[in-house]
């Protein structure tokens, strides 16, 4: 075995985790069977001291684990980015710290990277409750409207990809869920692979209402990122012009009635409404313009294309 790392496995411990030791051995066994030189990196949130203890125990037993402890609670994406920066393999595999898929699927995922740049796990067939399945169905339906890539399981964190992708595609905030979609937009070959769901991936997670709201906002974010980042005015302008049109017609009609028919303005609340439309439309267009100015003044920094190869 060469000393050069080929495969970096990154396991963030941010929200959920199951028995650390058991999962670790489970993963390690299957990663070993790929016959690659690998490293395993755990990124542990600041308040999981118990996890840290367990990992240190493993370390003492002679397991080579890189442990990165975060100074405070970060989002999953940030934790992963820290992991990317501290890993050296050409292939990166991210795994959840809890039972989500059956670990013996890992070699298949890595194998699929021969012909693709990114492989995304999809838990199939699903063993979740019916309600959970419906929820993700709706979510994926919305997602389908936004992207060309058919991503069925954005919540599955089992993903393997080549390092080139993170050199060109920058994910931040809560965007790791949509990493495959963004990578696909950048022209990388992304494929979804059905993996067997772990028997213990039961939905212990209860979803508060805020989670739905966040999901919706996530979809809006991705919509904007994909469609209007470069041209904010195309979206805001259309909305603004439409509203302005409606507002102006209504206002002119009411003012016309006052001039030609002598209907007093003082008791016409409709005038307030139509004026509100005008005011709102001006605001919307102003926002679009400011966005446009921001893009324009930073156009030199925004790279709009990804180069695959340059000859000569």
């Amino acid at each position, binding site marked *: 075995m060469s000393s050069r790392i080929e495969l970096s496995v990154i396991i963030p411990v941010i929200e959920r985790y199951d028995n650390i030791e058991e999962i670790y051995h489970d993963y390690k066994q299957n990663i070993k069977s790929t016959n690659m030189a690998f490293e395993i990196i755990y990124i542990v949130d600041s308040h999981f001291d118990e996890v840290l203890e367990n990992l240190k125990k493993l370390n003492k037993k002679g397991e080579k684990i890189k442990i990165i402890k975060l100074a405070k609670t970060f989002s999953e994406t940030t934790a992963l980015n820290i992991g990317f920066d501290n890993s050296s393999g050409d292939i990166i595999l991210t795994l959840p710290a809890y039972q989500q898929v059956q670990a013996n699927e890992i070699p298949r995922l890595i194998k699929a990277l021969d012909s693709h740049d990114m492989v995304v796990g999809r838990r199939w067939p699903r063993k979740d409750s019916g309600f959970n399945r419906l929820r993700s169905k709706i979510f994926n339906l919305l997602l389908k409207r936004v992207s060309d890539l058919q991503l069925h399981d954005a919540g599955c964190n089992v993903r393997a990809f080549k390092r080139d992708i993170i050199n060109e595609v920058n994910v931040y905030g809560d965007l790791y869920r949509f990493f495959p979609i963004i990578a696909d937009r950048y*022209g990388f070959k992304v494929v979804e692979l059905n993996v067997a769901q772990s028997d213990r991936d039961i939905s212990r997670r209860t979803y508060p209402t805020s989670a739905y709201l966040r999901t919706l906002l996530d979809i809006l974010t991705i919509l904007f990122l994909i469609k209007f980042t470069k041209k904010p005015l195309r979206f805001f302008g259309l909305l603004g012009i439409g509203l302005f049109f409606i507002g102006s017609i209504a206002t002119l009609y009411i003012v016309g009635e006052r001039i030609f028919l002598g209907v007093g303005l003082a008791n016409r609340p409709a005038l307030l409404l139509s004026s509100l439309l005008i*005011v709102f439309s001006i605001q919307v267009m102003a926002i679009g313009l400011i966005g*446009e100015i921001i893009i324009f*003044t930073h156009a*030199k920094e925004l790279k709009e*294309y990804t*180069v695959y190869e*340059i000859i000569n």
Partner: protein
Amino acid sequence: MDLSIIVPLYNEEDSVIPLYEALVHTLNPLNLNYEILFIDDGSRDKTYSLAKDLAKKDRRLRVIKFRRNYGQTPAMVAGIEHAKGTILITMDGDLQNDPEDIPKFIEKIREGYDIVVGWRYKRQDKLLTRKIPSKIANWLIGKITGVPIKDNGCSLKAYRENIIKKIPLYSEMHRFIPAMTSLAGTNIAEIKVNHYARQYGISKYGLSRIYKVLIDLITIKTIISFFPRPLVPFALIAAVAALVSFFSFISGIFYILQSGQESIVFWGLTILYGSLAIVLLFWGVLAELVYRTGNLKIENFASLKIDNEISRNNEVEKR
């Protein structure tokens, strides 16, 4: 390096080889140190492998392949960024432009023009879907930007390298390059070029562009006219809103004097337009802020002008 020819290609497998041969045939007699840049914009046919084979035989041909299809402007931007020549010439990859016209463009640049645009005075396109919309668009672009160019859509253009590399290009801005450079006070020349009907492949445009062009036009216009002081136009609109607010306030006072009752509508309008005026001023200040912190500085454009003078003088001295 004296000259770079930039050609975006998208599914043009039939045109690659004839185009390359025509270019070499035209450029070799000029005794210039030149390069040809083919930018493969994510073609799904043989375009890239053909270009690759050509590039293996000819070091002057460089090929840039995108990971996927990004559109014409990004392809041109990539070409402009990677070009090494002092004169850059962009053209279409579908053989609708004639490489034979290139020497005329170089001549014009040497005369001291900064940008030379082609004018397809005998367009070989469908009248209804292509010519008429483009006539209207060109007229509009000329009227709005104040740079009257008869044919903005012609890809065959020549630029002095130090200018084009400073122009912010994104999305579909390549149509407005002449308008953008008017910020910097460039000299633009127009020359008639030949135009051929498509021999291979299909046209990549539809009528849906009109909305996009219009919106882009509004954007360019506002950005150009705002450029030094974006607060001014915002303040003007704010002044109008303040006037309406004031007028409504007066009406409210009159209404009280007249009928002895309060009018909710008049007070509402006063507040509504008054707040609009204030918020617009805030937007204006924000716009100023963005300009100040962005990397597109007024000094940049001012220095552009000086650069031009210097490079023009150099050209004249050379001759």
